[in-house]
């Protein structure tokens, strides 16, 4: 393995950092399909996975990619795929399968402009809601959004940890700029970052229930071929995994999907704040938009404007409680997004009446720049 990574400081793309993070987390299966601007992740995995004893496969389309990832995870491998807007749309049905069948896996969506083919080489943050509500039916999603190359590494590791801990698909939401920009990064030593493994069954084979209701609601996970012989289906199922039409079992299943995540929402929230203690106006942004927002806030502070920054790293579950706290003493919150306004509705939902929510959007394929945001701060403060 020493041939594959180096612990030295390296100049690296966000997409490459996702590859390194995945390998660090123990990912040993990648099924993917080329799509700009995510392709470097597949290329990196194709090069490195066989060196780690893992498997890479280029599937015939994105539907097959995520299907194979789910299959590999059921066989016991930490598994992932990476894609962008159109591919993310194609994957949605099988991502729904991973939710109901409770199969841990990681999906990296390097966002580009849409809808449809849209802007293959240009940046957007327009899949924010797709990461939450992309597939049909009721379910609760986990999505993380890095804002730097270093965070691409760390959040990919975290995504695997969440996937394995909660037995659910986890979305890593980056974008064309985060994916392609290069920054210096030091790859953490093994053991430096926490790596979580799925809970293995410790019961006799005949006692095993693949979807057992436990105190945390997360069930033990056997791999295929270990003697547990469980059934997996996309049909709503009972604790053993067999299809059910009983109302009590249906409700229990959907509650399990909800509460196994939402009961632990506080542990999932990662909220980065800057200069919020005395802020009268604050900017809320994630990913690449937060980079510009941070700069804008610093410019404002230089001009003696009491501005602050709220940057969610975990987008879903949405940090309701933490935001209510942060916005309690703020008069204005400027929500900056590279879309026509998606997360702003979530802020409107949680912001206290004393805090005015202002949306600032850009959706022309360009990144938003700090001066634009600073000017808007001046207008709304």
């Amino acid at each position: 393995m020493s041939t594959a990574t180096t612990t030295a400081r390296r100049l690296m793309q966000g997409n490459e950092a996702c590859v390194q993070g995945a390998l660090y987390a123990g990912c040993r299966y990648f099924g993917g399909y080329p799509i700009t601007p995510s392709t470097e992740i597949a290329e990196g995995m194709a090069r490195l996975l066989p060196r780690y004893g893992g498997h890479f496969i280029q599937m015939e389309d994105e539907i097959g990619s995520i299907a194979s990832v789910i299959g590999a995870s059921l066989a016991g491998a930490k598994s992932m795929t990476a894609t962008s807007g159109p591919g993310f749309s194609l994957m949605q049905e099988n991502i729904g399968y991973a939710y109901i069948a409770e199969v841990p896996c990681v999906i990296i969506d390097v966002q580009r402009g849409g809808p449809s083919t849209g802007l293959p080489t240009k940046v957007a943050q327009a899949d924010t809601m797709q990461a939450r509500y992309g597939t049909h039916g009721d379910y609760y999603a986990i999505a993380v959004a890095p804002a730097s190359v270093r965070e691409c590494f760390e959040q990919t590791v975290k995504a695997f940890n969440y996937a394995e801990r909660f037995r659910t698909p986890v979305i890593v939401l980056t974008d064309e700029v985060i994916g392609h920009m290069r920054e210096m990064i030091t790859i953490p030593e093994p053991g430096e970052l926490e790596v979580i493994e799925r809970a293995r069954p410790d019961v006799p084979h005949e006692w095993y229930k693949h979807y057992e209701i436990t105190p945390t609601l997360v069930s033990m996970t056997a791999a295929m071929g270990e003697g547990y012989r469980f059934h997996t289906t996309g049909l709503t199922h009972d604790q053993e995994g067999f299809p059910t039409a009983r109302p009590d079992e249906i409700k229990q299943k959907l509650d399990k999907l909800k509460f196994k995540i939402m009961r632990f929402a506080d542990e999932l929230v990662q909220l980065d704040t800057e200069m919020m203690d005395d802020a009268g106006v604050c900017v809320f942004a994630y990913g690449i938009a937060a980079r510009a927002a941070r700069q804008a806030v610093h410019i404002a502070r230089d001009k003696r404007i009491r501005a602050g920054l709220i940057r969610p790293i975990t987008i879903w579950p949405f940090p309701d409680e933490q935001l209510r706290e942060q916005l309690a003493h703020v008069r204005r919150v400027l929500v900056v997004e590279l879309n026509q306004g998606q997360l702003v509705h979530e802020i409107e939902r949680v912001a206290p009446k004393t805090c005015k929510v202002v949306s600032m959007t850009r959706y022309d394929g360009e990144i938003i720049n700090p001066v634009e945001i600073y000017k808007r701060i001046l207008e709304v403060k």
Partner: protein
Amino acid sequence: MATKTQQQSDVTHQYLRVKKSFPNVWCAGCGIGVVMGSIIRAIDSVGYSKDEVVLVSGIGCSSRLPVYCDFNTLHTTHGRALAFATGVKLAKPSLKVLVVTGDGDGLAIGGNHFIHACRRNIDITTVLINNQIYGMTGGQCSPTTPHNAYATTAPYGNNEKGFDPTVLAKAAGASYVARGTVYHAQQLDKLISGGLEKKGFAMIEAISNCHTYYGRLNKEGDAVAMLEWMKKHAIPARAAQGMSPEKLQDKFLTGVLWDVDMPEYCQEYQKLIDSFKKKE
């Protein structure tokens, strides 16, 4: 002394999830149950353990088959069984992976995965149950519904031609291609076990009857009448070699139709992994 049929039933019953999943969803007289028996007997005959077998399916009548069987079973989304199975097999090549699919699931919505699984020659045995119609949704035409046949979505006769999955599988690169019927159940056992023993992609088409929809809409009679049709129209591939084209009209070939040895996907990938291990 037990008869051969009883002995066969005894084998089959050892592999069923009798307590949990029955009664099954299939209509009385459906051919899919026969295919289930054949799959089980084939697995038993090649000596695979229940623990190492993974039975994968998509959506449709045929794809309900795995839930009744006591293996590692994976009932996936419509058309995607082969893609899920590819991930299972590649992540853990020691597993024996079978896919059960139908003419709609495997050739329409799953057609892309079908040809690419053949092309990769990954060691998966696929049993494609062909009843020439969508049964679960109530009798719509499928990619194997013959030209001019009736279906609920072809009320004036099918304007499209059906295609032959065995020719498709061979052209796409499968190692082993065979066709049987649910009338010739014992032959089907052997065709499936031949596929299981093949290192590479094996596709066995099992001609089956949907008397509920296809038979009724096309006036082909009940299950028995449709089985008799199979008996009359199936010609063993070897016997067909000496027959005139006139005699073969309206007939279909059964038996092993294609059998070659080619490099298998997972084995080739393992060589790559091993080459890196040696370097270290």
